[in-house]
């Protein structure tokens, strides 16, 4: 089974005021991942009580979560249980991407009713 991977990420953001003033930022990078055992991707229902997206990795992870719901928001945590460690709060259609070099799990909970998210969570090794 393959254990070595190449991960590519590119992000572009822009904010535009009604005055016509615009600021933009973008970035991209590649991670070469070696000896990876934990790789999860797909769609998942997030309940109103905390739902684990990724169990604790050995070293760290890259995480992407997109809220596919039409109505409700979700909160994504750097923890297996809800707490202060909020990575992001996603309104319908919004997404987040982050890199965390720690051994915390990733969890999420929906506000008023279960929502479906699109996600990936990939373990990274100490050299990535």
């Amino acid at each position, binding site marked *: 089974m*393959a*254990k*070595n*991977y*190449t*991960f*590519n*990420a*590119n*992000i*572009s*953001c*822009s*904010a*535009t*005021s*009604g*005055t016509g003033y615009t*600021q*933009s*930022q973008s*970035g*991209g*990078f590649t991670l070469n991942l070696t000896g990876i055992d934990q*790789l999860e*991707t797909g769609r998942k229902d997030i309940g109103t009580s905390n739902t684990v997206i990724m169990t604790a990795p050995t070293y*760290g992870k890259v995480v*992407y979560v*997109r809220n596919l719901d039409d109505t409700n*928001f979700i*909160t994504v945590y*750097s923890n297996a249980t809800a*707490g*202060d*460690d*909020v*990575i*992001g*709060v*996603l*309104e319908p*259609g*919004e*997404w*987040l*991407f*982050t*890199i*965390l*070099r*720690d051994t*915390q799990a990733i969890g999420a909970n929906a*506000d008023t009713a279960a929502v479906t998210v*699109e996600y*990936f969570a*990939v373990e990274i090794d100490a050299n990535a």
Partner: protein
Amino acid sequence: MATMHTTFTASGSFTLTDENGVNIFSYSPSFTTLPNTSAKALYAGEHLAATAGSEIALAEVNDDRVYTFIKNVDNDYPVEVEASLSEGGGSPAPKEMADLNPGECFFSPMELNGDGSGNSLKVTSATAAQKVQYLLCGAIDN
């Protein structure tokens, strides 16, 4: 002058390929907000992340949600990003929301006041000060 609005767009492209050249996944998410008339400010710039941590003060953004893009543009050491510890000093203390090696970036609609009182971002470099670049914009309340 009439109240102005702000519109925010975030687009990404993420792929994972295994050692045999097999594409494991490919995602290209994107969203554009409706014009947000409650967004008071947007911030873009460059900041020196100190080893003891330094704050990117955000006086006029929505503490509950801020569109946050940060990139480590330096060459040597990782930078941690977290909601400011000093604003609340809550327990448990806020933890890092991203750990960025040189060249890496992240995007998230961040909550700054997870402990109930924060309104700024803290960036901390390992070993020696490092530069980050950022784009921050107030988002609608959840």
